[in-house]
């Protein structure tokens, strides 16, 4: 397999279980992400998604295994890997603008003050924040606006990899939709590589090129990598008309509903737990037939 832009190799995370033993959250997880790709990871709580995210961000150390980005091993946090946290993580004593310039200044220390500010304003404008709003403190902003600031801060830094940890988890459904659209808009303009955790299947289908599915923990693993065969640009009202939409959605629901449990808790015997690639495409003609039917594949996995 060709080396991916981001490659996660045999990542294992164990924690002490409080009774002298160890609890293996996931074991030998391996997968790759290509440059410019938007990848979502779906799985139930406790399967270790956030742990994987923290390891990719460099905020946590895996028990074993390596993460390589651009061929270099990742160790510790870096400006090359931007993070948008679920709880926004804005500094409450700084205004929205200052929160963004805080990041830009760290990224480009030799830029002049006005250049830093212009750059920050440009990215705030991209998420729909301009005018006097940018001088407000986070406590004076709504949850959606705070998350916009957080997204602007991450994109303004041009990280090589952008990590989104359930960025819309705390937002109401309508705000969530608007910000998803904004995220898509900025993302398509920047060719940013994105890795995102989510609980929301529809959100994942709308945003992602590929969805990684995790089984339940302990001994969770990244079981499948589902390609989203819906062409871009996508629009939330149009994609549901696409023939692949419900096929993919049903596959995901089925995985999360039943198979994630069935596959859980099994200690793997394979050394390298690469996810199986699943491609569901009802529009394609010749190549699709070469692919096994999803149903047939499911049986194979269950055996």
């Amino acid at each position, binding site marked *: 397999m060709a080396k991916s832009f981001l490659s996660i190799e045999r990542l294992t995370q164990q924690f002490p279980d409080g009774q002298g033993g160890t609890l293996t959250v996931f074991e030998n997880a391996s997968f790759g992400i290509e440059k410019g790709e938007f990848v979502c990871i779906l799985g139930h709580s406790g399967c270790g998604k956030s742990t994987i995210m923290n390891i990719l961000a460099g905020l946590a150390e895996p028990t074993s295994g390596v993460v390589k980005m651009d061929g270099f091993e990742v160790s510790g946090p870096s400006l090359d890997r931007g993070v948008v*946290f679920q709880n926004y993580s804005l500094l409450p004593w700084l205004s929205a603008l200052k929160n963004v310039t805080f990041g830009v200044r760290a990224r480009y220390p030799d830029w002049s003050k006005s250049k830093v500010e212009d750059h920050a304003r440009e990215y705030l404008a991209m998420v729909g924040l301009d005018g006097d709003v940018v001088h407000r403190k*986070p406590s004076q902003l709504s949850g959606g606006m705070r998350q916009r600031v957080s997204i602007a801060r991450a994109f303004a830094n041009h990280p090589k990899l952008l990590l989104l940890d359930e960025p819309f988890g705390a937002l109401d459904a309508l705000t969530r939709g608007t910000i998803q659209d904004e995220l898509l808009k900025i993302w398509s303009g920047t060719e940013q590589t994105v890795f995102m955790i989510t609980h929301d299947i529809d959100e994942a289908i709308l945003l992602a090129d590929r969805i990684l599915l995790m089984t339940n923990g302990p001994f969770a693993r990244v079981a499948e990598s589902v390609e989203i065969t819906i062409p871009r640009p996508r629009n939330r009202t149009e994609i549901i008309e696409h023939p692949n939409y419900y096929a993919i959605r049903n596959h995901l629901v089925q995985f999360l509903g039943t198979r994630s449990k069935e596959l859980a808790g099994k200690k793997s015997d394979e050394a390298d737990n690469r996810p199986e690639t699943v491609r569901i495409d009802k529009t394609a003609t010749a190549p699709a037939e070469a692919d096994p039917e999803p149903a047939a594949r499911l049986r194979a996995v269950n055996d």
Partner: protein
Amino acid sequence: MLDNLSVNQRAALLSVVMLVVGLLFWETAIPAQKAAAELTEYERLTGGGAPKAGVPPPSQVIAKAWEQLSNPFYDAGPNDKGIGIQIGYSIYRVLTGYILAAMVAIPLGFLIGMSQVAYKAFNPFIQVLRPISPLAWMPLALFVIQDSEASAIFVIFICSIWPMLLNTAFGVAGVREDWVNVARTHELGSFRTAFTVILPAAAPTIITGMRISIGIAWLVIVAAEMLVGGTGIGYYVWNEWNNLDLTSVIFSILMIGVVGMLLDAAFGVLQRAVAYAE
């Protein structure tokens, strides 16, 4: 009529009423000195005609305050200095001891707040030293330092260090992990993290500690100056007691209160400046 006033106006009105009633009550409660002519011969022979020391009525205190405050900085020898000079000495001692304490307590508090090991190592010492009445240090300070002025400053130092130290440590230890992670993902060095993230995040707690400290320092300076003597508002109170000039004693007590209030208010302003809402 009262319905038209705001809450603040009503409160101010009530304060004024309480003040006037209190002063009137005080004024009338003080028995007038008997004139010499009204005394019996026996009373005159036993010195009853000399003015008796007594709690002065507020009118006398106000007259004294007017006299003192209209010329606060006169200096007529060691035992006769204006109230401004005395308060100036006290403030100088408090601020010197306090700033020295802040210079030790805030960096040390940062260390203790950031490191579990440092916290556990320092904690027993802090717990033993903290409850010691600052004046208990005075004899030792006088002997070791051999200078009453510096000893008073030392006492201020030792009493104001604890609230600042503990609050700084508490504030720093309580900085949200998320904000530290923001600093980490932005590759800030430990110095810049301390100044741009941890310090502003912990500032409200630190300032609260500093505010408690300045209050304690101002309480302690009066007692310390009564002991070391020479100058200062504490010495002034004691000196006027020795002179049996209760008018001056009451006046200086009020001045201690006013200065204490101003110091606290200054920190209140500072506290509002660094406060943030999450």
